[in-house]
């Protein structure tokens, strides 16, 4: 029997891409097209990559990686004086579980807006989603965003005020009180994620799109620190309980960025030592990019398409989901 394909989802995907392009082109953004195969990577201990090798008898062999995100290339373009940019690209994360919201190859929309802060980029993203609404889209997608800080959410659903639990041991005790079993030497960010994933994420309202702002600074990333607070200028968007977008007010300080890469790379090496997991050989080529003040948003488009069309499984918006490829 011939395989069945849901061609309706393809029409909807095409329409979504066209509307995204209209939306950003109309606002003066430049669409850019950067490589999927990269000789370098932002070190991320928790992301495993797809590695491959360029083989050439004249110029020599070299390891390459399928990009987990187009971030470094896009920032490089932005740093060279481009206008605000956007890109729709295929991204790859190895070793993640297959399931109704994960596929190792997925489509990401990234847009970097010069001079925007957190509030501006939330408003822009609302307008973008409005522009993408389809006829049979679930009605809650049209409601105003519920914007709240991570700490407000932690207080409401986990009874835990992070301002009072900045100390690692204190947060670990709180996790135990709640019934969790963090490891004795577990880092603050892992304990936080344990509590957040168990008590907060499942409770996030589903009758509206939720935007969580002000992430703990202990979750190391390239979002700027909010001076005088324990937070970073970062937000995430949840639709029907699914994490769909992530935004940073991008770090502009080259030294801070470099120190971050080195720290993350050291963490990656120490976590993978002896596990047999591959360690990407990129330590001598971290890009030093002077990113202009900007807000960078990454949206998982397969997940967004699911939400826009009321589908419950990422495999329903992919013609060849990964588990199907595994069977072939």
């Amino acid at each position: 029997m011939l395989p069945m394909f849901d061609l309706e989802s393809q029409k909807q995907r095409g329409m979504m891409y066209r509307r995204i392009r209209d939306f950003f082109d109309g606002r003066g953004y430049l669409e850019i097209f950067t490589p999927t195969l990269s000789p370098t990577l932002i070190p991320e201990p928790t992301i495993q990559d797809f590695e491959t090798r360029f083989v050439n008898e004249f110029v020599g062999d070299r390891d390459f990686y399928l990009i987990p995100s187009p971030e470094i290339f896009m920032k490089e373009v932005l740093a060279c004086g481009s206008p605000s940019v956007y890109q729709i690209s295929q991204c790859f994360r190895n070793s993640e579980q297959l399931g109704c919201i994960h596929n190792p190859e997925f489509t990401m929309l990234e847009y970097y807006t010069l001079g925007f802060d957190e509030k501006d980029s939330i408003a822009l993203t609302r307008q973008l989603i409005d522009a993408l609404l389809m006829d049979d889209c679930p009605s809650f997608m049209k409601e105003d965003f519920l914007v709240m800080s991570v700490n407000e959410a932690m207080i409401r659903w986990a009874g835990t005020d992070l301002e009072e639990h900045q100390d690692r041991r204190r947060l670990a005790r709180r996790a135990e009180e709640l019934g969790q079993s963090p490891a004795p030497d577990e880092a603050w960010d892992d304990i936080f994620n344990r509590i957040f994933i168990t008590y907060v994420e499942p409770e996030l309202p589903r009758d509206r799109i939720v935007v969580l702002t002000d992430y703990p600074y202990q979750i190391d990333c390239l979002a700027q620190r909010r001076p005088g607070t324990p937070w970073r200028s970062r937000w995430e968007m949840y639709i029907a309980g699914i994490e769909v977008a992530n935004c940073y007010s991008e770090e502009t300080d080259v030294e801070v960025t470099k120190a971050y890469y080195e720290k993350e790379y050291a963490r990656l090496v120490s976590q993978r030592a002896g596990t047999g997991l591959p360690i990407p050989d990129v330590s001598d080529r971290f890009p030093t990019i002077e990113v202009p003040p900007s807000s960078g948003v990454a949206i998982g488009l397969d997940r967004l398409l699911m939400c826009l069309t009321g589908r419950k499984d990422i495999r329903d918006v992919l013609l060849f989901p990964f588990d199907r490829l595994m069977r072939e």
Partner: protein
Amino acid sequence: MIKAGQIDKGTALLIKGQPFICIEREFVNPGKGSAFVRLKLKSPSTGQVLSETMKSQDNAEDITVEDRDIQYLYNDGTNFSFMNVETFDQMEVPMANFPDYEYFMKEGETYRATFWEDQLLDILIPAKIVFTVAEAEEAVKGDTVQGATKYVTTETGLRVRVPIFIKQGEKIRVNTETKEYLERVNK
């Protein structure tokens, strides 16, 4: 020991010395941070449900369980009585641990059950069961939306909404998960 990432629905685990069965498992990869599994675990002995989140790389203590055949004897309103069909040993299990099972198990029938040592963790109930209608109400008129239906009670005491043509003594097939009537069974 197994890695938390390998836990699946039905995996039996020892948590703080107590056996639990995983009833729900979901992978969570935060945008930044380690991969976790979010688990719902149920204690077969108390019915308690735990929400537990573990890192995929954490170790979990899995326990070896075995399947045995047990015959359902009766219940006294508080406990179920079963007999191990190989050893003829009898055992009592609080009914509260297996809510509604009294409606699905028939006295004298044999069921596949999961044990950890001597503790009964799970009883396998077929997804569809044929029951005999023990009592049938008169049909109630007026429910035009769902078609004409009425309630009947099976030999095990389960109340099921059925089409009005079902009579006492007839056999019906029921979905045990939704407790809904599926079809009349003609011998």
